[in-house]
């Protein structure tokens, strides 16, 4: 059984050897390879932007969940003050569910942060190698005969091809992770809007309505008392003055 290092080398080489087969003359091979390097640099930059966007979305979702937590806590207190322990319990149960979601979101955000850092490092390495390759490419074109150039190109192209495959892997892994996290974020959004997970993040929730009912009930009672007081005892029916 082959070791993982030799297998990794094989996989990496198979990726960039195709690049070298494409062009026929050395100058063309060099220019073609350089073009591909610049494309890959664009790809890795795009990859970084995608990770940043995904991370922002998760952070926004975290903020929303945080707000819901605060609100649920306040609602639980209100409910308890109104003597509705059942409602208070309900709010606290929802709160605990949200806290779990929040923890998992936090881990995912950290995961994306790591991906971002890796991509940035990969971009830096590739960028430095591309610049070195560009210089070497011009030297080779200017100074060597076709046969000599072929050897030099082989060396330079192998060195940079390896980095290209490495960067390609970093982009792919970040993409896979970002996609799976976005799928989870969408799932949370969906659960929230459908009310299956949480109806509490919307403006008017069941809990809001019940609490509102309690509040308006006590206000009605208060106003009634006030009117009765203004009208006298309130016990005897009196004719109102026209």
């Amino acid at each position, binding site marked *: *059984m*082959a*070791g*993982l*290092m*030799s*297998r*990794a*080398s094989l*996989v*990496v080489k198979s*990726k*960039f050897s*195709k*690049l070298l087969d494409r062009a026929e003359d050395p100058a063309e091979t060099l220019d073609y390879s350089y073009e*591909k390097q610049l*494309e*890959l640099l664009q*790809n890795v930059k795009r990859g970084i932007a995608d990770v940043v966007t995904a991370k922002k979305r998760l952070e926004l979702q975290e903020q929303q969940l945080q707000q819901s937590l605060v609100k649920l806590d306040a609602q639980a207190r209100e409910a308890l003050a109104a003597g509705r322990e059942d409602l208070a319990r309900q709010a606290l149960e929802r709160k605990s569910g949200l806290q779990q979601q929040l923890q998992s979101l936090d881990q995912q955000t950290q995961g994306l942060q790591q991906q971002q850092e*890796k991509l940035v*490092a*990969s971009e*830096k*390495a590739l*960028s*430095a*190698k591309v*610049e*070195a*390759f560009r210089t*070497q490419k011009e030297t080779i074109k200017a100074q060597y005969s076709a046969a000599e150039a072929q050897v030099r190109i082989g*060396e*330079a192209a*192998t*060195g*940079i*091809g*390896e980095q*290209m*495959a*490495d960067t*390609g*892997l*970093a*982009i*792919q*892994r970040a993409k896979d992770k970002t996609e799976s996290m976005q799928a989870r974020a969408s799932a949370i959004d969906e659960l929230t809007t459908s009310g299956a997970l949480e109806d509490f993040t919307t403006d008017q929730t069941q809990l809001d309505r019940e609490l509102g009912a309690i509040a308006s009930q006590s206000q009605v009672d208060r106003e009634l008392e006030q009117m009765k007081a203004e009208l006298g005892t309130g016990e005897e029916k009196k004719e109102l003055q026209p």
Partner: protein
Amino acid sequence: MIVRLMGEGQYEVDDEVAKGLNELDEQAAEALEAGDEERLAELLRRMADAVRLNGARLPDEGLSPSEAIVPPDDLSLAEARELFEGEGLIPDLPSV
């Protein structure tokens, strides 16, 4: 010899380190074969650590090819299978 830690960069290591790497590498291949994710992760980490601790980091602008390539040390079992056995985790380089 020059070793690449994938996702990280290239290092120059001596023969002693290279020998140790090969031993860990054999065990890592066995862990992958056995589907032992935890063991695979541990071995990949030990390989990367051996290179980081005992090797000298080469500058990014170098164009020398590596003699050995160590897979990323946070590779999951599924990713390792895809990288080595499946369609390949590394996408084809951008084509025309």
